[in-house]
């Protein structure tokens, strides 16, 4: 099992949807961090994502682009992604964000959009 701590390994202040919004955006998180780790996982391996260590809150734009984008751009199906990731938190306030992440992934349509980087 691999572990990824958003607050420590990415940014304690994740904001925005696209790279054009800054280097802490959902697109940056997905393309430069989440996608490479998911791709590197062995078939029976899972990724534990810690969402509350050092992070105060999230916006929907970051979460939907960061997580559901993997499905929307055809990198992985919703079922496969949900079977590979485990959302972890110790603060109960983050249960809300866990539910939202799972809902975004479930509702995303696989390969429904072609990915075009917003910033080269």
């Amino acid at each position: 099992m691999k572990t990824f701590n958003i607050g420590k390994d990415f940014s304690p202040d994740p904001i925005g949807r696209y790279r054009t919004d800054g280097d802490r955006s959902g697109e940056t998180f997905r393309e430069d961090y989440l996608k490479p780790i998911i791709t590197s996982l062995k078939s029976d391996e899972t990724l534990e994502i810690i969402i509350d260590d050092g992070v105060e809150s999230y916006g929907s734009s970051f979460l939907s682009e960061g997580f559901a984008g993997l499905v929307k751009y055809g990198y992985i199906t919703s079922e496969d992604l949900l079977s590979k990731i485990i959302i972890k938190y110790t603060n109960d306030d983050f249960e809300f964000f866990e539910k939202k992440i799972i809902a975004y992934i479930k509702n995303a349509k696989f390969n429904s959009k072609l990915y075009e980087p917003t910033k080269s």
Partner: protein
Amino acid sequence: MMDDNTELASSFSSKIDGVFYFLKANGDCQSIHDVINENILANQGLNHSIDLLNSTLTTQSDSLVKQFLPVISVTIGVVLGFFSNRFHWEYTEKKKKESESFEKLSNLISDIESLSVEYWTKDRDDENAKNEVYIKSKIRLLSKYIRNIKTKDKSIKSELEHFSFDIFDIITGDDFESSQRKASKSKAISISRKCSDINANLLTHA
């Protein structure tokens, strides 16, 4: 009961007398006869004493119950009164806390509504970063308040949870935190309508 005992004793005595009448014919059984007669008399006396004691105890027992009946009634009344008061007090406190938590929640929703409407009715400006921080922290607080609400009415809790999921998507979705963000009047109206609707429902519970 006393008559029965007397009858029994006299019948037994007459039988003994009959036996000793026969023995007398043979000579010196008089002394044994006397002893047995004395025992029979003593037994009769004892029977009288037991009957007297029984009747006394029955009378005394009745009067004890009569004497303590008011005390027992008052004690039961006090205990029932205590539990009834306690139950009423707990129920009132619970209702008061529930009402306060709905009121706090309603105020928080109004704050979120004001901040978000202001945010989405203007294009991106220098004030944005501050409002984004307030909006995100208040939405986190909203989910906490909803989680901590203790109410028997499951429908309002479920309605609040749906509201928090919807309002999170509307307020912090699309170009939220984007440097290219443009004002969206329709989004602002949608936020305001949803907040007003849920506040109206909350008021009926507060």
